[in-house]
């Protein structure tokens, strides 16, 4: 594709590559979903067909490295980079182990030049990498896995819990998925930094966002960026008329939901986020909050705090669809959650979960303090006396060891 002079031939090779990449992804991940949905749709008309489902094992992280590889092909097609002639360098780009199974989704334009450049060991970078790995492990093992215990219990038996408990269940899942995925990203970024590589940042304290647009600039940044550059902008972005904006917004969010898995719950999650986002886009307020909240201040203003809580609430509602096994359960969960608002003032419910709530508060406080850094503890305690700093690091290390042993699978490994 890179060598061909003819635009027509170049386009042919480009589409061949795209179809092959997406074809493999579709076969492994979406084939059964489409077949089953098709059969179910026909059954409504009284037609019954044999289910031609395949019993294929889904390769770990297939969505990540497919998109990873696609970015390389698209960048060549768009003449942003030249094709890589060194097979070892290309293989390293595609299969760089820290990001192989759950991202961040790297760009050829970002990672390949680093691979080609000679790297020298830098003590400060390596220490920073270890610090980020430690923080990632803390987020995963101490925060996410502990929240998972309660979230699983509540989601699996949601019919027996009060509204307040169901809200806490959804909150626990919101913290779980953040700790789980951003924890993995921190481990990946830290590991890569040990080897002198800087990977794309994947999370930027999304739960401190003041609106959904800001949330999506801070959550799974490498995927949002990928969709923005390779799908949203080629579709016309937000430059067309209102209809074009609405269409593109729905496309990008639904595809984003579908990327997570072949299930209607993920599509509903994407759809709900599109509904959240659309009013901001149509009123041209989607780029209101570009800076970090309350920069240089200890606490946010009342207005910002209110906006953060409202955004978090919307995000939590959307996560219920993401976590539930089907749309029906998600809707029942939400209905049960809101039908008895009196239960929200029951102190007993919160006391029952006081340990995990205290842990979450501590975690969010650390995140808040470090929100101007690349990751929460990047600069935390660097000005302290070494003894205090090491006590802090050892506290994290000991708690990671203490809570280890019953680790949950990383949620994003399934994608």
């Amino acid at each position: 594709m890179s060598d061909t002079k003819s635009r027509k031939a170049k386009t042919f090779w480009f589409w061949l590559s795209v179809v092959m990449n997406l074809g493999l992804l579709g076969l492994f991940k979406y084939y059964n979903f489409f077949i089953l949905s098709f059969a179910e749709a026909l059954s409504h008309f009284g037609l019954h067909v044999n289910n031609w489902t395949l019993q294929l094992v889904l390769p770990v992280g297939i969505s990540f490295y497919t998109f990873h590889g696609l970015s390389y092909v698209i960048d060549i097609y768009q003449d942003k980079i030249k094709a890589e002639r060194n097979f070892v360098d290309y293989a390293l780009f595609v299969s760089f182990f820290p990001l192989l199974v759950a991202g961040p989704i790297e760009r050829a334009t970002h990672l390949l030049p680093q691979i080609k450049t000679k790297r020298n060991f830098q003590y400060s970078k390596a220490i920073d990498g270890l610090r980020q790995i430690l923080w990632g492990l803390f987020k995963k093992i101490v925060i996410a896995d502990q929240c998972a215990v309660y979230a699983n219990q509540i989601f699996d038996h949601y019919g027996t819990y009060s509204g307040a408990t169901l809200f806490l269940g959804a909150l626990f899942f919101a913290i779980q998925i953040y700790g789980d995925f951003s924890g993995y990203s921190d481990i990946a970024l830290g590991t890569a930094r040990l080897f002198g590589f800087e990977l794309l940042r994947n999370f930027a304290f999304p739960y401190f966002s003041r609106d959904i647009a800001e949330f999506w600039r801070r959550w799974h940044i490498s995927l949002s960026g990928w969709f923005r550059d390779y799908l949203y902008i080629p579709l016309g972005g937000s430059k067309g008329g209102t209809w074009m904006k609405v269409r593109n917004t729905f496309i990008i969010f639904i595809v984003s939901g579908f990327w997570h898995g072949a299930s209607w719950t993920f599509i509903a999650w994407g759809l709900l986020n599109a509904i959240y986002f659309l009013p901001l886009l149509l009123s041209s307020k989607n780029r209101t909050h570009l800076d970090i909240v309350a920069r240089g201040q200890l606490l946010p203003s009342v207005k910002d705090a209110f906006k953060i809580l409202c955004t978090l609430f919307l995000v939590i509602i959307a996560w219920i669809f993401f976590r539930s096994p089907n749309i029906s359960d998600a809707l029942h969960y939400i209905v049960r959650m809101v039908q008895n608002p009196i239960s929200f003032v029951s102190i007993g419910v919160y006391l029952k979960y006081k340990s995990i709530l205290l842990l979450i508060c501590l975690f969010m406080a650390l995140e808040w303090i470090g929100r101007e850094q690349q990751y929460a503890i990047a600069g935390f305690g660097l000005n302290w006396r070494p003894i205090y700093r090491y006590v802090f690091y050892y506290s994290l290390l000991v708690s990671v060891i203490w809570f280890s042993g019953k680790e949950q699978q990383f949620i994003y490994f399934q994608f």
Partner: protein
Amino acid sequence: MQIQLFLRKTVIFLCVPLVFYLVLLIALSLQLSKGTVFSKKLDSDKREFLFLGDSHIEKAINDSILNSSYNVGQSSESIYFSYFKLRKMLQTTHCIKNVYLGFSYHSLSDYYSKFVDGEYSNAISSKYFYLLPFSEKLYLLNANRRDIVSYIKTITEKGVMDFMADQHTYLGGYDNSYVSSKAQKNFMDKRITLQYYTNGQLDSFDAKNLEYLKKIQELCKQSNVNLVLLNTPLHKYYKSKVPDAFIEKYNQTIHDMDIQVLDLSEMPLDDSCFIPDGDHLSQQGAALTTKYIASQLVRDTAAKP
């Protein structure tokens, strides 16, 4: 140079908690292996009758209504752990004259190995870890090597808790919360399956329990302590379901060992004296059994010249 500095600092960073942990583990081992808790509990009240064993003893003997007795029975305690517990008790106390060791048909089943070095080792063997000699500690660490972090965490947690509370998880004692219960056939069937069968096949005999039963007999002889095997009451339906092979092995074992046995497995008791599994006694059953044993002890004492 920079990479050497990095490696040196990283190793030191990781070694500090490791060294700290090893020191903590050694300190806990030294402190908790002393077994001073036994002399505190037994010698002060001159308890000469000791009841030792698993949940059958734990639930059957209410030592508060039996003079000069002490129940140290504990759920899932295999004879292997009872041996080391008794050894430490005899080393640290002076009042024990009679040991009643829980011994029943299920004590012979290989299902007990799960509590020593099998799937439940983490929860059960960790209670006795500090009581064991070094070689046995290594044996248990090796048995739990697949989940070593979790095992080390459990023994540390239990050790620290024991040390802080001046309690000992290996001590055991009478513990029975069943007040209005009764034996139920479906639970008894499940219990029989759990204790004697794996995947529909009859379990083999537990060689370790048999080996340590003989060791307990020798230990009692050396310490001049009277050893009695105590088979606590069983519900008649439960007993009828015990596989013949285990009944034969039980009879053969006590015959070969030439040992005193107090077999109450056919003691006539109402359904309400049992918990649903028919294998353990309720509070009511425990009271009747303990009183019966008390009457036996009075009779034996009176019979002595």
